[in-house]
């Protein structure tokens, strides 16, 4: 899209990539001249809030047992705690590629379990990938090919505010100057800022009953006779209409956000969506769009996968990698007392703090983080894409965008701190 008339003052930074949701929009214009970074163009509420925080806020940026400390002392204390722990967990994992690489190396030395703060949602997709697979697509394909987009229970406006602007609302595509894209909301409606300017309809039902809807849709597309009069509380006639619309689409897309399918065994709902898509591809083109990727969750998963062969919720205890999507939940291990040390990394979002626990905790977090409990060690780290450069994977797990350092900062990156702890552990025999 053409840039809007240029409101940017001199010194404004262009083509800035934003790390505050899985879209990782890379067209932002930011004014770095004041203490709080100002998003001048191509922003959204998440970007404005993320970039606009006061990085000087908060107390001492390095603390041991609640007292200001030097970095060396904090790193040494963290290393000692990791050495002494019988089963440490590295959780949170809100960091960039370099941070995830460093976390993996440290986990190996410490024999730690690795898990991300968003894993509960990520596992809903992973279980499907490991069980049956899927047919999916990416943002630019949606923008150009899709003539029907079904949004299954996802609160996209809140979690990815610019999704509609960037992937649905464009008039021009590679193949047409006059795009027609119909949007159907299943479960949750569009909300006030939804798909403005596009033709849309809503079929209201509870997210927990979406699997019924897709089961009925599969039967209808497969030409099977249906005795039921309703599915997910919606008359079958309505589903029949949608099934016919799907069959007629040239390139249909079903988007979901695993985070919004927050109920037990939601992986089966995702699987229902994916099997419906697979069936439709016997006739036409259809693809899934699993939206996600906040707090660096896809990034951490990607790094662990390529290095060890296993993604999130894996363990390096005993020196060999292993994955268990149930047992290696950091949240579960903390709750059940299966870990005696938690190292929590959260460098994007000050609100994502560690779960309450009595075990010693090391936090690598944002300087403006308010913690309910003072951890054993706190080290403030910079945010990738604000205080330091880095890389982040976008929602599609294909594009890894470069993040820039937007202003000078004394804060280290999570990667630097993790590497320092790793080096300190190496010194502490017999780790």
């Amino acid at each position, binding site marked *: 899209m053409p*840039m809007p008339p240029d409101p940017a003052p001199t010194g404004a930074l262009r083509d800035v990539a934003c790390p505050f949701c899985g879209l990782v929009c890379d067209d932002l214009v930011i004014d770095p001249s004041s203490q709080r970074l100002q998003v001048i163009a191509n922003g959204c509420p998440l970007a404005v809030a993320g970039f606009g925080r006061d990085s000087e806020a908060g107390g001492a940026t390095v603390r041991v047992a609640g007292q200001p400390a030097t970095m060396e002392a904090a790193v040494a204390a963290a290393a000692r705690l990791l050495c002494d722990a019988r089963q440490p967990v590295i959780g949170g994992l809100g960091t960039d590629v370099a941070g995830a690489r460093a976390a993996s190396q440290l986990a190996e030395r410490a024999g730690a379990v690795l898990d991300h703060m968003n894993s509960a949602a990520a596992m809903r997709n992973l279980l499907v*990938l490991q069980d049956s697979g899927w047919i999916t697509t990416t943002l630019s394909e949606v923008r150009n*090919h899709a003539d029907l987009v079904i949004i299954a229970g996802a609160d996209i406006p809140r979690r990815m505010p610019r999704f509609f602007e*960037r992937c649905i609302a464009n008039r021009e595509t590679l193949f047409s100057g006059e795009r027609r894209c119909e949007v159907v909301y299943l479960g949750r409606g569009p909300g006030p800022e939804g798909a403005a300017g596009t033709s849309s309809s809503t079929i209201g039902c509870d997210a927990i009953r979406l699997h019924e809807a897709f089961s009925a849709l599969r039967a209808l597309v497969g030409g099977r006779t249906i005795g039921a009069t309703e599915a997910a509380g919606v008359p079958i006639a309505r589903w029949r209409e949608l099934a016919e619309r799907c069959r007629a689409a040239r390139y249909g897309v079903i988007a979901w956000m695993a985070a919004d399918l927050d109920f037990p065994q939601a992986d089966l709902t995702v699987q229902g969506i994916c099997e419906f898509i697979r069936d439709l591809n016997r006739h036409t083109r259809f693809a899934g769009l699993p939206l996600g990727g906040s707090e660096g969750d896809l990034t951490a998963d990607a790094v662990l996968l390529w290095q060890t062969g296993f993604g999130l919720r894996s363990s*390096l205890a005993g020196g060999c990698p292993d994955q268990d999507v149930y047992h290696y939940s950091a949240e579960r291990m903390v709750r059940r007392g299966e870990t005696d040390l938690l190292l929590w990394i959260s460098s994007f979002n000050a609100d994502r703090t560690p779960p309450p626990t009595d075990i010693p905790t090391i936090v690598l977090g944002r300087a403006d983080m308010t913690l309910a409990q003072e951890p054993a060690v706190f080290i403030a780290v910079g945010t990738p894409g604000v205080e330091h450069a880095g890389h982040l994977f976008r929602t599609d797990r294909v*594009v890894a965008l470069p993040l820039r350092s937007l202003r000078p900062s004394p804060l280290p990156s999570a990667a630097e701190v993790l590497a320092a702890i790793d080096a300190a552990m190496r010194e502490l025999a017999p780790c």
Partner: protein
Amino acid sequence: MLTRLSGGRVYDPAHGIIGQVRDLFIRDGRLVAPPGPEERIDREYDLSDRVVMAGAIDMHTHIGGGKLNIARAMLPEDHRGDPLARTDLTRASSGHAAPGTFATGYRYAEMGYTACFEPAILPVNARQAHMEMGDTPMVDKGGYVMLGSDDFLLRMIAAGEDHRRINDYVAWTLVATHCIGIKVVNPGGISAFKFNQRMLNIDERHPHYGVTPRDIVRVLSRAVHELGVPHPLHVHASNLGVPGSAESTLQTIRAAEGRPIHLTHIQFHSYGTAGDRKFSSEAARIAEVINHTAGASCDVGQILFGQTVTASGDTMAQHRNAAHASPRKSVVMDIECEAGCGVLPFRYRDKNFVNALQWAIGLEIFLLVNDPWRVFLTTDHPNGAPFTTYPHLIRLLMDRSFRNERLEQLHPDAQGMTTLKTLKREYTLHEIAILTRAGPARLLGLDDLGHLGVGARADITVYRDLRDRERMFATPEYVFKDGEVVVREGRVVAVTWGRYHVVRPAFDPDIARRLGEHFDRYHTMRAEHLRISDGEMGDFGHGAEVVTQPCRE
């Protein structure tokens, strides 16, 4: 520091050395001329009775990038059977069909390989591919970037643009993505699949752009040639795996109009439709054409029996084959108006007629292509088999009785459909050194790899000369990387991180402006952000150097 490797039987095809006993001298990581009598030898290795070759080069192996990570995510069961514990020296990882990058690097080195080339890098995914290759220890690496189903190129061809502009685009892409060659996968077919086209024959028109696979092969092979990129266009031809695919392959060779062309995993593209089951070998016909087409080369993509996973950019073929996945799961993905990928686990079975014949067809190709400089040893890892099967494959090539014993265990109908038993050829060590060292280096334009002449990088593999060639090639006695011992008795003893090899042909920078406008209009990222900096490459690769290989004048 001067090192002497003394008394080994040297196989260095680039210099016509075939098993003669030679001393090799290493200084500062490179081979040097024999020193004068006054010079002190600091280190000496007695390699009497040993076979000495340059480090092996895998010119087509899927070791990094998004599709491999999808494969890894899909296959926890595969990794669980092959864990790799950390040691004081090496990192924890896991292996088999889609190993972690650490396991990949260690195991390649443990087999005597010192360079690997990833053959299917999407421009939008190049950064990830280089991150993964950067985390692959021990070996040098490089990649071929995929074009030919990207809308930008298809629009250029459809609009009949000046060829110089197309050359600019191809060159920009190589430079931006730090790659060493251009790959085309099912030319136009990945894009056509997005329009619900399920097959695209060589002269069939793309449903939107009207261009044909033949047009795309012609245009890209010309661009690669005119830019002076040493590696010819790397072609995954139309109709992979389809009975009758041989015809597409022969037409694809013709589409290059006499310019150099490399046909990859040609085994999957050498099928006919004869016989009761309408599936037969056309290896002889394909080999005959390769033999008589000076600019044509191929790698085989041999299949070997057992569990693996297929990972390909060819969404059209992968979607078609999804029902054959074992275990029954598959991922197919359309990607960014540029390409796609498909991943499905697969178990090749020797008692299955089709699989058995695929095995025989691959070996027929190896044995019927006369010129070892134009055929390369690959399994298209992991598509035909994991790369760890290479020693077994080498034995099949070098040992006719072993090959025939295996043949007799196959599906009986497949045995009746192959001429393999009549093929007496046994590869020699000299020929294996060509297939796995000298040939790939020459084809890729790597002047200082794949040979043992003065000035070469001292990447050297030393084997015991065992009758069992599988054992011999599985466990080299020494592997030297840059003149240092990194593997001893088939185990890593020192960790290095290798280099990236790239080409950087010149282009008119106006193409960057055009791409920028195109991306701003149609895409969801800035074109500028496709471009990877040298600094990023260093960060990804543990400080790995980026070596720019020269383009031809």
